[in-house]
């Protein structure tokens, strides 16, 4: 009995980590973007495009190509957002939504079986048509880490995943180091707080905002790739299911810290993994919809929780978040 319980807990944490990695990657990137003062509401679309790119390029070549492509497409979409919001100084909310719609539409388009198959076979004619038409791609393999995987409970939960899961933790930690232990990080954070002041001290506000948005976009693209290659075994349209928007709420809950984002992402990963465990427990088999609502409901509850003045006072968004910067004479 005790063994069974332990394995249930293990399985739950394993599931939370697997699902949470999606959020962790997206949130880590978004933390960087928002720390520089840019709100990327296009994250959902970027993740969608990242998932598509990983699908197509994995079919064409291999996983590495898929992953690299997803990050490049993510960065390019973010570049578009940066151009609109940093250079043209357009409203970041509306621009982000437009980008999400564009990413969602285009992703659905290029990954529709016939279109996908023709794209894949144009890039690499060696791929057989029946493979390209299949709504599936080879999954990323789990790479258990020797020794660590044998640790009790956490061993299996944290160290028996694919490489992106490990990379996401490394990314989050390095992002924290970058933001809080380096000169660049200080400049990025200052640009997000008070661009005019940073500018006066010679910080290149535009360059920092462009780079932060693009790196954030690359990580968003990777998050999309991970959903398809590492988490969900088959392709569906709308594969991200609003996770990009949930990641935006997570960034607030993580108080714009990549380290806290790890914790918060796994927490939400747990909520998501719970969905798939509910039917196993014999609950909600008839009404999966209510279980599927959980992440969204929890997100709203999170925002309510964050709005209570006691919490709010402790967490403050980058002061210049969402405001375009113009240098004045």
């Amino acid at each position, binding site marked *: 009995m005790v063994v069974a319980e332990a394995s249930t807990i293990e399985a739950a944490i394993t599931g939370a980590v697997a699902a949470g990695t999606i959020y962790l990657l997206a949130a880590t990137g978004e933390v960087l973007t928002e720390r520089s003062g840019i709100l990327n509401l296009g994250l959902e679309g970027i993740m969608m495009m990242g998932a598509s790119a990983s699908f197509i390029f994995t079919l064409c070549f291999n996983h590495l190509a898929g992953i690299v492509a997803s990050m490049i497409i993510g960065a390019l979409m973010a570049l578009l957002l940066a151009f609109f919001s940093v250079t043209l100084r357009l409203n970041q909310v509306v621009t982000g939504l437009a980008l999400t719609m564009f990413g969602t539409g285009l992703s659905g388009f290029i990954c529709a079986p016939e279109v996908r198959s023709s794209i894949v076979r144009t890039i690499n004619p060696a791929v057989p048509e029946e493979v390209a038409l299949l709504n599936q791609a080879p999954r990323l393999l789990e790479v258990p880490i020797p020794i660590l995987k044998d640790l009790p409970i956490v061993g299996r939960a944290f160290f028996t995943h694919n490489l992106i899961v490990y990379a996401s933790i490394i990314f989050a930690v390095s992002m924290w180091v970058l933001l809080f232990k380096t000169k660049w990080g*200080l*400049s990025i*954070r200052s640009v997000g707080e008070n661009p005019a002041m940073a500018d006066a001290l010679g*910080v290149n506000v535009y360059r920092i905002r462009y780079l932060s948005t693009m790196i954030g976009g690359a990580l968003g693209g990777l998050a999309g790739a991970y959903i398809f290659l590492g988490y969900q075994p088959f392709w569906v349209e709308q594969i991200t299911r609003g996770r990009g928007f949930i990641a935006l709420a997570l960034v607030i809950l993580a108080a714009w810290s990549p380290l806290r984002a790890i914790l918060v992402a796994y927490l939400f990963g747990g909520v998501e993994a719970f969905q798939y465990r509910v039917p196993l427990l014999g609950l909600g088999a008839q009404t999966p919809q209510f279980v599927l609502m959980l992440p969204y409901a929890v997100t709203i509850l999170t925002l309510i929780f964050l709005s209570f003045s006691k919490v709010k006072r402790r967490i403050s968004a980058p002061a210049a978040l969402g405001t375009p910067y113009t240098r004045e004479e």
Partner: protein
Amino acid sequence: MSKNLFILKLHHHVKFHGPKPKINVILKYGERQVQDVEDNKKKETLVEMIGIVKRFPGVIANDNVDFTLMPGEVHALLGENGAGKTTLMNILYGLYRPDAGMIKIEGKTVSISSPSRAIKLGIGMVHQNFRLIPTHTVAENVILNSPNTGFFINWQKIYDELKKQISKYGWRINPEARVWQLSAGEKQQVEILKLLYRGSRILIFDEPTSVLTPQESRMLFTTMRKMAEEGKGVVLITHKLEEALSVSDRVTVMRKGKVVLVKSTSMTTREELALAMIGRQEITQLPSQGSSKPSVPILSIRNLVVEGDKEEIAVNDASFDIYKGEILGIAGVSGNGQVELAEAIARIRKIKSGKILLEGRDVSSYSPRQMYENGVAYIPAEGARTGVVSDLTVMENMILKCYRYPPYSDKLLIKWREAAKLANMLVEKYQIVAPSINAKVKTLSGGNVQRLVLARELLGNPLTSPRLIIAVYPTSGLDIGAAEYVRTNLIEMRNEGAGILLISEDLDELLRMSNRIAVMYGGRIVGVFEGSQASKEVIGMLMARGAG
């Protein structure tokens, strides 16, 4: 009982005004007295600004100004508000480009295109409002984008360095503390640290004591002296005579964009400086009227306490009355609670304790709308930002307050015909230059926007013309003509019997317009003067130091 509110700081008044100061040198307007200090000739000049000219639309802020700074000196740049001191230093700091003139740093001609260029040249400036990131630590603020830091920041090493620097000046700030936790004086120390960390040799302080307590000010002066001893050049921009006299080695006085006096501090007197600053200028007195009549006050403020945006006490135990047909001017250096006072009376800001009585009725819990309905007009500071909706039309802005009442609307519908009639009438009466009443307000010039606000507010509500007008910096940012127009209109309203609370930073304006002047310092009313008895020197002194 209100009599005791008018207690004058008479002893002060007499001390300064009674025995007329002996003035030997009569300065004509614009004449310059330059006395070179022989000692400084030996050293190389740190800064030399020659023939600086800077024009803004409608004004010449700097008119052929020369300025020098020697290493090892504290140089006071003295003058009234608007004399052009800050403009001159902003030019040195690269915030403005001069229209003419030359700048030499240590003998080399330089072009200072931006603050970051200035910083590279060793010039640093401590602004009146601190340029710090409140959520960052002291150390983070100090080392931002500094070339002295490696890619990975060794925080411990930086903390140690900063602590050394901090203790050298006898300060007590913790480099790991977040800036929002610090007092104003400590924030200023962070600003200074920022400059020193970047190796600035030329340090400019813009009215540094305006936000400090007397103790903090003394500490700052000690720091300035220490920096001078280290061979740095320190510029102190100030309008306070005492400061210039007590801390500087040399003083440059500016008036109306020109340098009128440069002298070694030890060789000048308070009187000479005061005269140079103010010039021989007749203060025009408008006939004071009505204030001596003890009628019912329109507005009575009793022991009012108001909190500012950061939950600090902004207005502290203020009490005064405004009578019918009277302008009460509030003098004070900005940030001493004037705006909060006005907002509290207009009921836009919560009050913590105390009472506001409108014609004897307690209105402390009224809404802004109720105040409007009771005949209170409010001309907000920065009218162009907060007084109008610039994306709406002139007509829509004209009815911004009265649209809820007949004849401009019934319960549901707005009657645009009436609104247009009103707007056309006001546009004509106040000579507002606008393409049409259907033009958006953002197409209007600043002066015309202010006229619009004035027109709307002075109209009152559909039942009465305003009985109380609260005007906050109503002429700031306007050109001379527009400012004069605003003043004339306010005086007209006063003559028609309205009570007016006029908040201004322009002492001349207050002296010309007010029947009585109250001085605010640190949130308190520190003195109330009859307009005819008020002297600029005494008020200036109170504005600067609170109690004499």
